[in-house]
């Protein structure tokens, strides 16, 4: 049995930032476990720029952004194991790890930080009718083939879903010499960042078909084409609008799902809406001493926010390892009301917050010129004017602890429409 103060599961942006911050807060005995063959996680395949505007005030590519953390991680001499998989985590924080090099390892940790990231939804999960030929890839898999391994998935492409990876891959495939006929989006708006719609689609004249979906897949061995149709307000395909697009490749960017299989086995309570753990202000899950951050907690739009959240988590885990649990104070529940799809964290223990707390949230639709209303019980503590809110963009709100302590047992966030 190996003993560690903190074991971090995942060496992507979340795991790296959390481990670095835990070390800076005095924890010596940390282990980061990474299942891939290098640190950096999914950033390694995101060779486009646009990362780091908030954290570093400059535009970096994914690998550059990762490199800054990997360099610091090595400077701090934090222990890590690559090509190593966590098979199991129990509630008492013992873990089973496996790798070719070390075999089967039993590890006991005082605290665990879950930073496993997310996976992509598949064609099967959205159950598109048709055949099952080669040539259907999730956008992220195609991105790995093209950017990391130098292979081309196909030459005539249709993309389903306008999440950020889908948008980025539309541009990448054009640059690589493919033709991208369309990006098809079921919703009346894109799930991606506005800047990606402009830079990846509009600049390359790739049509974005909103309110459209793919209703059939054709091709026995390799994909031959897809049938696209417009949908009505109840998301049913309109027969008269059906159109066949010849293509040899279909990329899917239809949502990301936090990878919480280990968390479920550890008995951690999950939020149905985010797909991630239910956490408190310290990013601690329902199992004491197990923390979660990054895309395994909730899917982020920008890696900068992952870093911010993970730093906070690393610091909390360090406190958990070294400090006596403090009693007292109140626990405030956060509640997503009108127009808000979720809030992280789910609860705030007032005693644990120093001066202010950042909450992260996403809205459930496109809103223009609205007010984000933050209340405790019925008392309004913040009114934030917003010109534009979209489900594809995460919002963060900083709230002073004074405001929370003086209020009730619930902190609610809602959208006040037409409120100027």
């Amino acid at each position, binding site marked *: 049995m190996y003993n560690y103060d903190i074991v971090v599961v995942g060496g992507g942006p979340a795991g790296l930032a959390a481990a670095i911050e835990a070390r800076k807060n005095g924890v010596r005995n940390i282990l980061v476990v990474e299942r891939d063959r290098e640190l950096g996680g999914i950033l390694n395949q995101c060779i486009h720029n646009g990362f780091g505007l908030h954290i570093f005030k400059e535009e970096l590519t994914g690998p550059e952004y990762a490199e800054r953390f990997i360099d610091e991680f090595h400077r701090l001499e934090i222990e890590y194991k690559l090509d190593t998989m966590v098979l199991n985590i129990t509630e008492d924080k013992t873990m089973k790890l496996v790798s070719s090099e070390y075999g089967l390892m039993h590890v006991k940790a005082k605290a665990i930080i879950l930073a496993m990231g997310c996976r992509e939804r598949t064609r099967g999960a959205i159950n598109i009718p048709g055949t099952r030929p080669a040539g259907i890839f*999730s956008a*992220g898999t195609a991105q790995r083939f093209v950017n990391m391994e130098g292979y081309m998935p196909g030459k005539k492409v249709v993309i389903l879903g306008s999440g950020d990876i889908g948008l980025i891959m539309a541009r990448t495939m054009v640059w690589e010499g493919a033709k991208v006929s369309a990006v098809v989006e079921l919703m009346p708006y894109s799930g991606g960042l506005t800047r990606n719609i402009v830079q990846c689609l509009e600049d390359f004249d790739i049509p974005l078909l909103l309110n459209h979906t793919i209703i059939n897949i054709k091709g026995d061995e390799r994909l031959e084409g897809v049938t696209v149709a417009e949908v009505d307000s109840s998301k049913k395909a309109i027969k008269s609008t059906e159109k066949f697009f010849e293509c040899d490749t279909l990329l899917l960017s239809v949502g990301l799902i936090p990878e919480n299989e280990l968390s479920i086995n550890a008995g951690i309570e999950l939020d149905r809406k985010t797909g991630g753990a239910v956490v408190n202000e310290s990013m601690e899950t329902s199992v004491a001493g197990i923390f979660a951050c990054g895309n395994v907690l909730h899917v982020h739009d920008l890696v900068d926010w992952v870093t911010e959240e993970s730093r906070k988590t690393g610091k909390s885990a360090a406190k958990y390892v070294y400090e006596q649990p403090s009693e007292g104070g109140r626990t405030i529940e956060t509640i997503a009301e009108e127009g808000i799809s979720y809030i992280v964290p789910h609860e705030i223990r007032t005693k644990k917050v120093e001066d202010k707390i950042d909450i992260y949230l996403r809205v459930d639709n496109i809103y223009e010129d609205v007010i984000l209303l933050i209340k405790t019980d019925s008392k309004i503590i913040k009114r934030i004017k917003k010109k534009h809110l979209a489900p594809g963009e995460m919002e963060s709100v900083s709230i002073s602890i004074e405001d929370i302590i003086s209020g009730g047992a619930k902190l609610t966030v809602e959208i006040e429409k037409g409120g100027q």
Partner: protein
Amino acid sequence: MFDIAIIGAGIIGTMISRELSKYKLDIILLEKDNDVANGATKANSAIIHAGYDALPNTIKAKTNAEGNAMFDQLCVDLSVPFSRIGSLVVAKCEEEKKVLTELYERGKKNGVPNLKILEKEEVLQMEPSLTNKVAGALFAPSAGIIGPWELAIALAENAIENGVELKLNYEVKNITKEKDYYKIYCDEDYLEAKYVINCAGIYADKINNMINSPYFEIMPDTGEYQLYDKSVGKLFNSIIFQCPTDKGKGVLALSTVHGNFMIGPTSERVKSKENKGTTRRGKDFLKENIRDLCEEFPYSKIITAFTGLRAKVISEDFIIEETGNSSGFINVAGIDSPGLSASPAIAKMVVNILNNIASLEKKEKFNEKRKAITQFITLSDDEKSELIKKDKRYGKIICRCENITEGEIVDSIKRSVGATTVDGVKRRARPGSGRCQGGFCSPRVMEILTRELNVGMYEILKSNKGSYNLIKRKVENENWSGENV
């Protein structure tokens, strides 16, 4: 010159090959595709039926219950996942309960053991997740679940172990009758055999018509299925069938041998023998029917949907016979449900037919055992450690959803009937069968295939000929160079 050529390496062809490999015979098993178990065998209900369904005095009735009883030994010998979890035909009203009595009587005539009609309370006790609209059920404890393609692959491996030769990518284009043997052509290539056994599934009519006058026609019928995540795998304990009514046969629901929940099939007559697509109609139909069995079913847990083709014939019974006008040519055709369940008994019938034309002699040595791929994740901690010490590749997890190691994938490629494609590896070792459906592991699996088979990435197919995964880049100016040319 071979003694016997078997056409088609699905469950029937492989089962017959293995059975005949017990005798002193030179046997060749021919398959048009690049892998065995590539037709109906890879897309069906994966059930070993009890045998109450077939009308008495049909070949189906005779072979189903008999075949069912043979699976315990077979699956132990071949290390194939099989579990007798029993089945329930669920009636929802008095009218349907009458059907249960009919099935019960029919089952008894067909020799199905231990059938029992259960009352509502007993059913709900066995299946708490079942709709409480249930009125009663027919319980058949001998029904079981199996890995159908695992079985066919295991049979093929064991047959080869016992001397059978397997020829993949050999699509029979013509057959001619010589004096006392047959010539079987694949384009220019041909081989010779004294006896031919036609197990060509949905193409059995085409093969028959090469040598005989047409006397049956395969009319394919599609069945769509849906597979759900393991988190709903334990919804039901037994195989649940809807009660057959005038409107249709109903659907079935079960937990697969790998712990996933499965529901299906639809039933639709189709024109094309290559029609393997799922449909919106099928999707809606299955959704409606599962709601009929379990009101609050979590549809969002779906992993994938697929379609299988059944080799139906008009008589609706199996055709297992030596054809009258050409001695030594045996048709094993029209093998739709319960073909998988009946397959060991079908193989016995074929042996008997052959024994009548050419007296067969048993081999002194027949190895009935076949070892399965070691599943790392199912081992104890000590066994895991030992295995990694022996072979480091078992310490490397390639498929994160199902925890499948490099060692297992390499084993699946290196076997006598080894995988050569991404789907081939998936069918043998299961990487990509989980919730991410290969999103993370398929590039790694392709890499391992290239290394083990010593071929390039572009040559790695998803499944059949033409199902290429990656394309070669075009060189647009002459200065561009690279390995992708």
